């Protein structure tokens, strides 16, 4: 993980690296504090289990980091989760696809949904916020229309290995998430693709005049966002053993919260996968730690909100000091 922390210093302003360091320190302090209150919190079992529960959000948060770095946003991810989940169940049950094909189909539908976002955003020049609010409603509506709000259940046992199984004691989907985190981190940090994202976010016009293929890059990241949502849907269906059209409702806010808490600027041009991972872990473990310490659900949401505001304040005060 330190690979990602060490290198952005060159390209990304210094305060940002400090923001992540600070966030990591806060995270460790919070964990130690909660761990002192409750001896069931800092156990391997609990932490691995939290890893399992946060995987769906984590999968989507990776491409969302890309999207937000370019100054865009994708609000339709939760709806794509619902649509892909429905497509998985529907193609398997109604079209009679074999399950592996149905999984591929669900991923393809997710990717296509993301591609449509990217295509319209770049060609028709609809702002990402407007476009993805529209497709948020559209995809959720399609999910409801196609499924007629009926669940699909009774998948074969092997399929549950992805969402409920483990490998060497580690939840299967957590391994998947870790692999994708590494790939996303390297892609953002070490490739021209990654540098193009920062260039678009910092100054899109300059990026265009530098002969960067801005539109194609944008289509790619929105497609990735849809693809990751489709993957999250497959993992979620496997974990909860059923398909519902309301799956993933509200995910967009959890995902964006993790990305922004991790120091990615909502105005684009700055952010790291490393920060997103800290943000993701922080929200998940804070919720879990507070719940185990006996704080009720509604109060936990308040704490998460305060943490978000604090992080924004810290980020902006650090930025002011830099200026």
């Amino acid at each position, binding site marked *: 993980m330190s690979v990602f922390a060490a290198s952005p210093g060159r390209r990304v302003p210094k305060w940002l690296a400090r923001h992540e360091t600070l966030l990591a320190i806060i995270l460790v302090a919070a964990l130690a504090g909660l761990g002192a209150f409750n001896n069931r919190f800092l156990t391997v079992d*609990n932490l691995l289990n939290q890893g399992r*529960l946060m995987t769906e959000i984590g999968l989507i948060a990776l491409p969302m980091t890309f999207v937000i770095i370019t100054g865009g946003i994708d609000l339709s991810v939760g709806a794509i989760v619902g649509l892909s989940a429905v497509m998985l169940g529907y193609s398997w049950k109604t079209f009679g696809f074999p399950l592996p094909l149905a999984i591929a189909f669900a991923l393809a539908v997710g990717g296509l949904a993301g591609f449509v976002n990217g295509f319209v955003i770049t060609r028709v020049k609809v702002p990402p916020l407007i476009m993805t609010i529209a497709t948020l409603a559209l995809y959720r509506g399609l999910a409801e229309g*196609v499924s007629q709000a009926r669940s699909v259940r009774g998948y074969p046992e092997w399929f549950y290995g992805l969402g409920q199984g483990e490998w060497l004691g580690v939840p299967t989907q957590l391994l998947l998430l870790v692999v994708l985190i590494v790939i996303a981190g390297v892609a953002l940090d070490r490739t021209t693709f990654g540098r193009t994202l920062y260039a678009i976010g910092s100054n899109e016009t300059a990026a265009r005049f530098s002969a960067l293929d801005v539109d194609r890059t944008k289509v790619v990241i929105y497609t990735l966002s849809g693809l990751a949502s489709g993957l999250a849907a497959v993992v979620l269906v496997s*974990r*909860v053993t059923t398909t519902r059209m309301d799956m993933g409702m509200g995910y967009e806010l959890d995902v964006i919260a993790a990305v922004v808490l991790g120091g990615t600027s909502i105005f684009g041009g700055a952010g790291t996968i490393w920060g997103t991972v800290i943000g993701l872990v922080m929200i998940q473990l804070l919720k*879990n730690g507070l719940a185990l310490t006996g704080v009720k659900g509604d109060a936990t949401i308040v704490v998460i909100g305060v943490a978000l505001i604090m992080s924004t304040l810290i980020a902006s005060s650090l930025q002011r000091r830099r200026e």
Partner: protein
Amino acid sequence: MKARYLTTAAAAALALAGLATAANAAGKWDGGDDLATSPLECGMGPAAPAAPMKYDGGQPTNAADKAGKEIVVVDVPKLIGIGYFNATAKGIQDAAKDIGNVKAKTDGPTEAKIDEQIKFIDNYITSGVDGILFAANDPVAIAPVLKKALSKGIHVVGYDANSTPDAREWFVNQSPFNGIAKSMVDAMAKETGEDGSFAIVTSTFTTPNQARWIAEMQAYAAKCHPKLNWLETVEAQEDNNLSFNQATTLINKHGDKLKGIFGMTSVATPASAEAVTKAGQCGKVAVVGLATPNAMKPYVHSDCVKSVVLWNPIDLGYAATYVMRAAVDGKLKPGDTSVDAGKLGKLNVINGSEILLGAPYIFDKANIDKFDF
């Protein structure tokens, strides 16, 4: 250039909408679910007792012997902050007080989301409670986490909305689905006549209890009132305003054809009654539905609504807590036929591993003032 893309986008949107509509046309868009139905016999005769079923619940593995000792129980309803689950939570606290050695608390998501509910239960498993009471947002999706609780020696009892049977020990059934369906459809047929047309205002098509009731109503209507004409089912969340608007739309859209409205939630029923009253259709459009008596008193007294169907949610929470205590104490074992539930007396075991709270109660002008909840 731009216009061409816009046209393409519009065409694509139309095609998508067409696809969704075609998918609808293939099946019935009625808000029911796909599970098997078991409509009761027609007419007024007492329901034939169902054939006794073998216990089909799950059992906790290596549960600590807490018989007679204090236990910590957490209640995770579908969502918190609505009247219905406030009432069940009150029943749980009442029972905890009556029993003495039960410490109960209610905690859950603020929206009826299944993955949120799963996370709450998962956290309480880790924090080490003795028992979990739940009302499931989805019977299948909740099963893995409940089975995990059982495997950690935690007692699991459901109420209001069931899970798959092997994921919990017992389920307190407020009233069998087919019983509610029969009461509702019979009441509607009586008010609209056997060939009346009706519509349904439900919460959402994915809410399991409502979907189950609608499926059972459909089966029972087909069997016993085949001439009743089902116009459509509309969604109104559990939102007062939306329910009122949806009911008003139904009245305007179907005009004289509409003879009755079913309210499937304790919010939809009074809102539908209000819509009928405001439209001046009292006596022309019947309202039958599930609702709490307090919300329905004005409409029952003005003769706009003749019958309201419900059980007592406070009793439901109360019974669930007694069942939990009995399961922990070993007083309710697989194969038992009844359980003692404090002030509610003895409750019977049905369907293998369900405890029946009672038959649905029909409130009408004669008795509604005797109830206050």
